[in-house]
């Protein structure tokens, strides 16, 4: 039976309190020895003389959730993990705020390190999330992942 596809999207920025909460929930899991967390933060890049004020994220939601579901399954297959959580912002996220939160937990650190890196690279390259980099004067450009 196929597992339920989760919704990864959170409206607006991902708050530090949300992350703290997520960490706290793992304190009852007594087989975990290592957590590894990746946070993507919006940079105030300067592009042709203008500074990025925010990124306005949109997505092909259904496909994005399906793709993340597949990444999750692949990661659980490849790595010996206790837990995995993936969240991405949708809508406007100001520079300095967090837009991506990936959280893996394992008995030992090696698995956590390897898994986190795999998942983040997969998300960056395969998940249909789109970003409009909005400048201070509200003009914009479209972001492209490298």
């Amino acid at each position, binding site marked *: 039976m196929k597992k339920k596809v989760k919704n990864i999207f959170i409206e607006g920025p991902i708050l530090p309190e949300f992350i703290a909460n997520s960490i706290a929930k793992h304190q009852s899991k007594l087989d975990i020895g290592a957590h590894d967390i990746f946070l993507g933060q919006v940079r105030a890049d300067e592009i042709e003389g203008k500074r990025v004020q925010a*990124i306005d994220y949109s*997505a*092909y939601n259904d496909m994005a959730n399906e793709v993340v579901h597949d990444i999750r399954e692949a990661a659980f297959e490849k790595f010996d993990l206790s837990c995995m959580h993936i969240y*991405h912002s949708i809508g406007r996220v100001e520079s300095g705020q967090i837009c*991506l939160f990936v959280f893996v937990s394992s008995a030992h650190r090696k698995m956590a390190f390897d898994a986190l890196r795999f998942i983040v690279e997969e998300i960056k*390259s395969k*998940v249909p*999330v*789109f970003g409009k980099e909005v400048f201070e004067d509200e003009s914009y450009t479209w972001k492209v*992942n490298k």
Partner: protein
Amino acid sequence: MQRIELLAFGQTEEILGAQSVTLELKEDLIVDELRAFLEKEYSRLSEINYSVALNQKGVEGSEKIKEGDIVAILPPFAGG
């Protein structure tokens, strides 16, 4: 002929001027033919590195499009 619902997002939505358009296309159309058709209709599309998804999966140019497929044109990904 077949009727196709095409979804667009972000920059492709901006170029099409709509979140979705309905197209009348010949049967057994392949993805590369769809791309050529779209780039003629919406010339700015050829300037961006967009990809095509059928039924929420990224596909190659040789894939056939069938009636009832959900077709999406996706601008470059920018997640994270």
